[in-house]
């Protein structure tokens, strides 16, 4: 298990086209490493759309309910005070004054919850090891990662074919 080859390209356009061809041939592409997002490549290599946004919504909801609960507890329930004649006996009447804070807390929770999820999901956290096969892939190179097992093509055919698609360099890792 784990025999992988990395085909390095030097042009995002070529990678895009190459990936298309490979997939047409039935080659399973494990991943593509690039210095910037190559638009439209995800569906080809079968990366599904992320569900981060849904988490965001959930975080937002939590934040808002927490905020409202807090307002109610702080101002109405736990320690009601007559502040400038404002109604301290019902949340509803006093709510307009709390809207700004509720909004801010909602945004706070959404944003930070999401960023955290993003890091965890990416497995990008301080001090983590980078997985890109070649340092140049964060500069101007584009790497296509293919596992050799269960591929329609043999290794030789595959390498040859990759060259065909415009790979400038092919590294194998056992």
């Amino acid at each position: 298990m784990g025999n992988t080859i990395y085909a390095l390209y030097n042009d995002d356009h070529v990678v895009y086209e190459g990936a298309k061809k490979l997939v047409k041939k039935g080659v399973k592409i494990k991943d593509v490493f690039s210095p910037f997002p190559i638009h439209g490549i995800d569906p080809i290599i079968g990366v599904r759309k992320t569900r981060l946004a849904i988490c965001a919504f959930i975080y937002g909801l939590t934040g808002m309910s927490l905020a409202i609960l807090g307002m109610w507890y702080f101002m109405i329930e736990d320690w009601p005070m007559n502040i400038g004649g404002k109604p301290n006996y019902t949340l509803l009447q006093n709510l307009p004054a709390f809207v700004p804070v509720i909004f801010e807390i909602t945004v706070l929770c959404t944003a930070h919850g999401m960023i955290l999820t993003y890091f965890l999901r990416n497995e990008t956290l301080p001090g983590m090891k980078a997985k890109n096969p070649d340092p140049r892939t964060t500069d101007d190179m584009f790497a296509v990662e293919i596992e050799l097992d269960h591929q329609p093509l043999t290794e030789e055919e595959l390498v040859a074919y990759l060259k065909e698609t415009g790979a400038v360099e092919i590294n194998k890792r056992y």
Partner: protein
Amino acid sequence: MHIVEAEIREPLILGHKSYNDITEDVCRPIESRANSLWYMLFGLASILALWGLGNILYTVGVGIGVWGLNKTVGWAWDITNFVWWVGIGHAGTLISAVLLLFRQRWRMAINRSAEAMTIFAVMMAALFPGIHMGRIWQAYWVLPLPNQFGSLWPNFNSPLLWDVFAISTYFSVSLGFWYVGLIPDFATVRDRATTKLYKVIFGTLSFGWSGSAKHWNRFEEISLVLAGLATPLVFSVHSIVSMDFATSVIPGWHTTIFPPYFVAGAIFSGFAMVLTLMIIMRKVFHFEDYLTMKHIEYMNIVVMLTGSMVGVAYLTELFISWYSGVEYEGYAFMNRATGPYSWAYWSMMTCNVISPQLFWFKKFRRNLVLTFILSIVVNIGMWFERFVIIVTSLHRDFLTSSWTMFHPTYVDIGVYFGTIGIFFVLFLLYARSFPVLALNELKTILRATGEHGVKGSKAHHDHKEGH
């Protein structure tokens, strides 16, 4: 269709660049030694900063009395500076968030630094509500912590408390947004790093980013959603700041048009400050290819637009104060325009409303020197706007017996210029050690908006960029 676009639209990246060239250009300041100009600016800024810190310590040590405030004018330069800095802090997130939502590609050259500026500006802003407190050592009481005095909670009816939440949310979210965008670029620097130290530092900073398709997929998603969140945030923050005044009873503060008017003003001053910094950076780091006249022109247009909006707001205020027939309102504005502080009012008018009108002319919009001068003039004007709103409203309010004048002390002045120093110290340090342009984003638009597309690329037509 992008080829067509490339023909009719002015390129946003000049010169015949390859992806690698971009990397090289952006990483050069980080990897090479700073030039003398940088050291000069840095020295200047640090002197200012030290002076400011001294004054701040003096204030905290002796008491707020070292400022020029009095029984009638309880806020003056402190809150003026606060609002001024918050205003400036609006451009960054606005540029990277709103312009992202609108798919404005020209944002990409400036958003990184604009956001950095935002963060530093908001830091400076947050400083003032702190030191303006009589007892700063109790500042944590504004947080909803059950404290040693039993269950004492802050007062959520208070606009000042809304501020606390607005500013801290705005700051931390901007910071997160900014950092998420920085990670791939840190990775680039990491992978180029030749020294051990750089490898460690940027290895840590880049959180082990590998730039796999999944990463980019999520990256684009979070950028979009965060932009979606940051946009209302931007508007909320200055609206809430404006409520400090709008919800009060003081004639000249008690005004419903404040929220939109403050937001417009904030964008106005923010863009002006971005321009100031961009033009300096362009010179110091020779970024002429990335910060093109096109960028400057776009921003000048925004400045002109928001400047005019602010102007409309000023006139509306004047009209309503007369139209309302409320004696106190009427007098407050009469006093602004003709009273002892009219000099401040008219310098505000000149700087904020009249001067930006120059940008109706393309010639001026594309004139670097003029732009630079005006960008500073605008921020002077915006400082006066806040001064006028705060001081001229307070110094003559309801009971004529309490009318006074406000006279700043050298400490007021020192603290203010001190924060400018600290701001520039931070920004210059940032400029030396961070990728000041969004590498990965620039690369995505190189093909479409580069003067000669991508150097060494056989492909002659671009792929659909996300729509």
